[in-house]
């Protein structure tokens, strides 16, 4: 699971959970996988990203190469910054681990890089 994907996941599907966002990551195995850098993709994706959720997720995965607290329009020309965002969004791979609902504590397994968000019938 890339942090780009994580950025789009919520656990509000659980009965009684309001936002369920962002899910905490309990990393088991994290790998860095090189991905071709495409600045245009990053710039188009940025407006769709919840920045604070990405920052938090990157930290949880032990990625400390500072992402700034905000990214404004004027920074979109900063290739160095875009590369760091690229790395955080696309190169960090959570291979094994858990996602944790911030409200209920319900854990979702990540196996083989794939989050399993299925709930039991009594949870929905």
């Amino acid at each position, binding site marked *: *699971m*890339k942090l*780009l*994907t994580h*950025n*789009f*996941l*919520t*656990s*509000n*599907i659980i009965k009684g959970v309001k936002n369920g*966002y962002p899910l905490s990551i309990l990393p088991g195995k994290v790998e860095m996988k090189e*991905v071709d850098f*495409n600045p*245009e*993709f990053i710039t*188009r*994706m940025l407006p*769709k990203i*919840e920045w604070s959720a990405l920052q938090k997720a990157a930290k949880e995965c032990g990625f400390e190469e500072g992402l700034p607290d905000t990214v404004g329009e004027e920074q979109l020309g900063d290739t160095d910054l875009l590369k760091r965002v690229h790395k955080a969004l696309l190169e960090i791979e959570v291979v094994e681990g858990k996602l944790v609902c911030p409200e209920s504590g319900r854990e979702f397994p990540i196996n*083989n*890089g*794939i*989050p*399993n*968000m*299925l709930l039991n019938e009594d949870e929905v």
Partner: protein
Amino acid sequence: MSLTSLSHFPTPKISHLSTDDFKFIYEPAEDSFLLLDALEKDCVRIEKLRPCICLEVGCGSGICITFLATILKSWPSLYLCTDINHKATEIAQQTGRENGINIQPVTTDLVESLDVRLKGQVDILLFNPPYVVTPESEVGSKGIEAAWAGGERGRQVIDRFLTKVSDLLSEEGLFYMVVIKENIPEEIEQMMKKEGFDMETVLTRRSGPELLSILRFQRTQA
């Protein structure tokens, strides 16, 4: 980006899959291939959209989303896919890798856990649903039966999904869905019209007893 309307796109390799895998997940069949043909036929339309986020629901082996990514190869996009069958999402990931494509699978029911954040963001949406007419009681498995069991008129899973399409699709977004005649496409057209969508039939083909069609939906343009 160049338009590649004249080229033919290679069908994704699935030789990494064995007959054993197909005991657990849906083996690509005429319906899957008809969807690929429809995407190929529509490739200029799809490329023009310059999609940012693509999503396949019920990806099975992953052949359709992988093919979509092949069409858009020169265009970077996020390829998400879901399946209720965890074995399917695992295999879809492999299919992507075997074809040099990065797809991001999530095991979930339809688009649960993704729909809030994907609101209005999906540019290309694909669904080859369990469309076979079966007793209602056969619907709802998380195994291989989920691949085809559609309940009455084959519409149980289809109808549950159709209510979500309007929320997911971006302004210009395209939604492609496989149906058979028994699903009553004319009725689906009426349902989607109420949601503000136009329907077009991209391709139709008979395969044994099934009369398959690929439907394309897009918001009625003002």
